[in-house]
């Protein structure tokens, strides 16, 4: 049983290549919010449902009006490839509460974890970043240049945010990108990072833009200042690993009523990657398995060949 030099070299080369490629498949640490994370705070108690944000979002993103199945202009009823931001209402008898829905810009996004080509990525951490992308802001951006349209992001997102252009022959995924393209350095931080139109246009300051840390503090301050007004929880503080868009709801209305899913503190990306990557052990397992099997099979083959040749040339 001699391991030939050739097979050893081959094995080593294979190991090196695959390990280099599989460098990132390690058991995952939990990621916290980035230091310069920006976000939005939506206070349902202040929202009057005027939908200025819905209209403005369409305007600044160049989105057409929604049309129903027969082509007639219709008001949007849900997020779609032409609606990146929407106001919905929860009704409970005579009471009602509004909720704004758009991309939550999660701290540990599932869509970023599953996107095959890294088309969905945190700003600055993509595979092909624009020169102006800054690392650390946590905005989830979309690069249609590498997107293959596999739509795994739609499966992964617990909020069902990414939407697909089903009626296009050359479709893209559409979702709120926090108006990153409207960033305005002349206004100073944080508007130099992004400048969401919805926050700019809201007449009641029901949705505001800022650094996530300050928004979280502001949300806590509001609850303490007027505890009877709110239901006591800040959605997005920890849900699904935390989101950069935070929500406050009126007293007596749960976040589930407003359509926000009940998520554990562990992000689904963390769960999925931990389970998937565990057997790979930094890529060692597949390489080792392959080397072992190739070794065994080759040895067997050599023995079979020897036996066959021996049988043929039997004296």
């Amino acid at each position, binding site marked *: 049983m001699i391991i030939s030099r050739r097979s050893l070299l081959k094995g080593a080369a294979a190991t090196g290549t695959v390990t280099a490629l599989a460098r990132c498949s390690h058991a995952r640490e939990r990621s916290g919010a980035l230091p310069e994370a920006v976000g939005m705070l939506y206070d349902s108690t202040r929202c009057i449902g005027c939908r200025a944000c819905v209209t403005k979002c369409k305007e600044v993103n160049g989105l057409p009006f929604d049309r129903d199945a027969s082509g007639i202009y219709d008001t949007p009823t849900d997020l779609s490839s032409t609606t990146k931001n929407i106001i919905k209402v929860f009704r409970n008898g005579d009471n009602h509460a509004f909720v704004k829905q758009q991309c939550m810009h999660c701290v540990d996004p599932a869509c970023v974890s599953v996107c095959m080509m890294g088309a969905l990525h945190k700003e600055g951490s993509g595979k092909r970043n624009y020169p102006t992308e800054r690392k650390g802001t946590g905005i989830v951006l979309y690069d249609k240049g590498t997107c293959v349209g596999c739509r795994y992001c739609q499966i992964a997102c617990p909020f069902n945010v990414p939407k697909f252009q089903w009626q296009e022959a050359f479709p893209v995924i559409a979702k709120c990108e926090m108006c990153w393209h409207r960033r305005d350095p002349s206004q100073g931080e944080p508007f130099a990072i992004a400048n969401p139109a919805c926050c700019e246009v809201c007449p009641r300051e029901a949705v505001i833009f800022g650094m996530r840390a300050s928004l979280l503090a502001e949300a806590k301050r509001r609850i303490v200042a007027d505890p009877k007004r709110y239901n006591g929880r800040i959605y997005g503080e920890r849900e699904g690993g935390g989101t950069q868009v935070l929500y406050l709801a009126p007293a007596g209305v749960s976040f589930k009523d407003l*359509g926000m899913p009940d998520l554990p503190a562990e992000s689904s990306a963390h769960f999925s990657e931990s389970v998937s990557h565990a057997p790979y052990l930094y890529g060692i397992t597949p390489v080792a398995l392959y080397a072992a099997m190739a070794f065994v099979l080759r040895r067997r083959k050599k023995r079979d060949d020897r036996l066959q040749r021996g049988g043929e040339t039997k004296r």
Partner: protein
Amino acid sequence: MTELEARGVSRRDFLKVCTLAAGAVGLPAWAGEMMADKAASSAKPPVIWLHFQECTGCSESLLRASAPDVAELILSLISLDYHETLMAAAGYQAERSLADSMERNDGKYLVIIEGAIPTKDGGVYCRAAGRTAIETAHKVTARAGAVLAIGSCASWGGIPSADPNPTGAVGASKIVTDRPIVNLPGCPANPYNLLGTVLQYATFGTLPALDELSRPKLAYARVIHEDCPRRPHFDAGRFAHKYGDEGHRAGYCLYKLGCKGPVTHANCSLNHFVDVPGAWPIGIGHPCVGCTEQKIAFRVPLHQTVDVDRPTAPSTYPPIHADHRVVEPLPVGIGSAIVGALAGAGYMATKKLTGNPKKHDPEE
């Protein structure tokens, strides 16, 4: 009727005015006809119009018409026995008319109060004919058939009562407390609201149903926002941001310019003013200032936005979970048939194979 015809006013125009007036208080068209007939006869309801701390704007709104004959018409429907601005008499003669009318129409005359009543320092800040407004109010309303307070000033104090209210101005209902007063706030009040109320009283002897602030429900039950013609713009999120900007010129909603429509009870959005369609504040591009509301008018700054308080959200808002169902019977049928066929084929094949021991199923 003949004197009106003599002045060139046709019966048709006359009926039109009466119908409009009836409509203003929500009475059907036939009531307008009844009013016209009653008014055409000599039995015109007597009206005594008192002026206190006012600008006479409410009277002017009654008279200010694009068609001058209509103003005359209005005045022909009632017998205006005392009106300090419009009556021909002056001085002692005017006061004589007042006393005569009160005596002649005892218990039947209608009092319309225009203007707030000052209460500070014994009410000296408004005196006419040697009497304070408080005294006049008490005296004239004592034997009246019904009392109307026209305009915000008479309803709750209006401009004179704005901070710091140096004269202690209050609405008429704070002074005349022994009988119900119909308040018709507005600055100015809509003349057709007044006309309708007056004619209803004159024709049927009843007053319209009132809300908790004694305002006729049919004119003041809804807020401007509910019936505003620019409401679709609000609902679609289209707003004017500055006077003269693109949105303003396109006629978008004025909410962000401080429109008080959402909290102002009035029917201006339906009736407009001055008999000219579109001639009302929002119609000409200025946000509603809430002139009928005591808590809003002359208190909340003109361009400060207000909360929109809605008891139930309209059905135009999408629900939390939209309907995205796509299942239809035909594909379900076809798909089930395919799966069924596969299962059936598998079963049949198995049966055939098993049931034919010699040919297919040699047990080895």
